[in-house]
């Protein structure tokens, strides 16, 4: 009987370990996917912006502006005319993202740098976007912020 208990205990430990590994893997896959998707949204939506400003607080000051920021739940948000995107889309997640935008203040240019961090796992991705229609991005003195707002003229509008 004792041997049986020992064997079952070992089997349980093994299955439990497998379950933990699977859940960790699924979690990792999800936040990687979410962060890559957020980066894609930033790149695609800002590419043809006409005006852009970096802020340390999220703000949408007019109806025709877009704003990208992290909301109070740690979710990525893109708000704009007829657009409201949240990543991750489900609430059953422990992802808490943070976002930093910055410009290289040493020379005026059209590059918007950004970094997305999952605060739970510490995983981060960094990238940059070349903005086709802007000569300079308005930024705080520090050159960085946690939100951007921008306008863009869509083709044909």
């Amino acid at each position, binding site marked *: 009987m004792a*041997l049986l208990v*020992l*064997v079952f205990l*070992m089997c349980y430990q*093994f299955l439990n*370990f*497998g379950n933990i*590994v699977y859940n960790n*893997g699924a979690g*990792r*896959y999800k936040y*990687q996917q979410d*962060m*890559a998707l957020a*980066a894609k949204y930033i*790149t695609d939506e800002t590419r043809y912006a006409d005006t852009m400003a970096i802020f340390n607080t999220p703000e949408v000051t007019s109806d025709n502006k877009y704003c990208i920021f992290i909301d109070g739940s740690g979710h990525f948000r893109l708000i704009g005319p007829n657009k409201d995107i949240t990543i991750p889309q489900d609430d059953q997640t422990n992802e808490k993202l943070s976002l930093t935008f910055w410009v290289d203040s040493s020379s005026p*240019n*059209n*590059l918007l*740098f950004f970094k997305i961090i999952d605060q739970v796992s510490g*995983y*981060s*991705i*960094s*990238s*940059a*976007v*070349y903005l086709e229609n802007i000569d300079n991005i308005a930024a705080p003195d520090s050159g960085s912020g946690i939100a951007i707002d921008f306008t863009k003229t869509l083709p044909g509008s």
Partner: protein
Amino acid sequence: MFFLPEKKRIYQNQRRIFGNGFLLLDISLAVLLIFLALLPLQAVFYYSQLHLSAARLLTGAVMLAQAGLEESLDASYDSLVSRDRASVPGQPGYSRSISVADSPNGRWKTIVVTVYYPGADGEKQVSLAVQRANPHIRLSSTGQ
């Protein structure tokens, strides 16, 4: 209890085998056998972790390669030159090189950004390429 002689002998043998419990050696052997059976399954977890971390690093590397391409789009056409491999600031473990090649007719440059990153089984790399047209060359109008 009444037993025929043959059955009595079997019963006594059974008692001798099962009635006295198990030896430490029996248990140790059983545990060892179970571990030997489970050992190959550990490889599943190992490879699972390996691929998960590979995907994690690859995503970061692609983003950095993309950033390198965007930077090359921001630079003036004439200033586009190859850059040796150098570490990416703020991204420990990642390094990046940029290769710029002129087209034979001088009409465009091919820019290849390669990001190197540490993998579980050695260094890995990912490359993204883009072509930029020479802004100094104007295509002649058709019909002239």
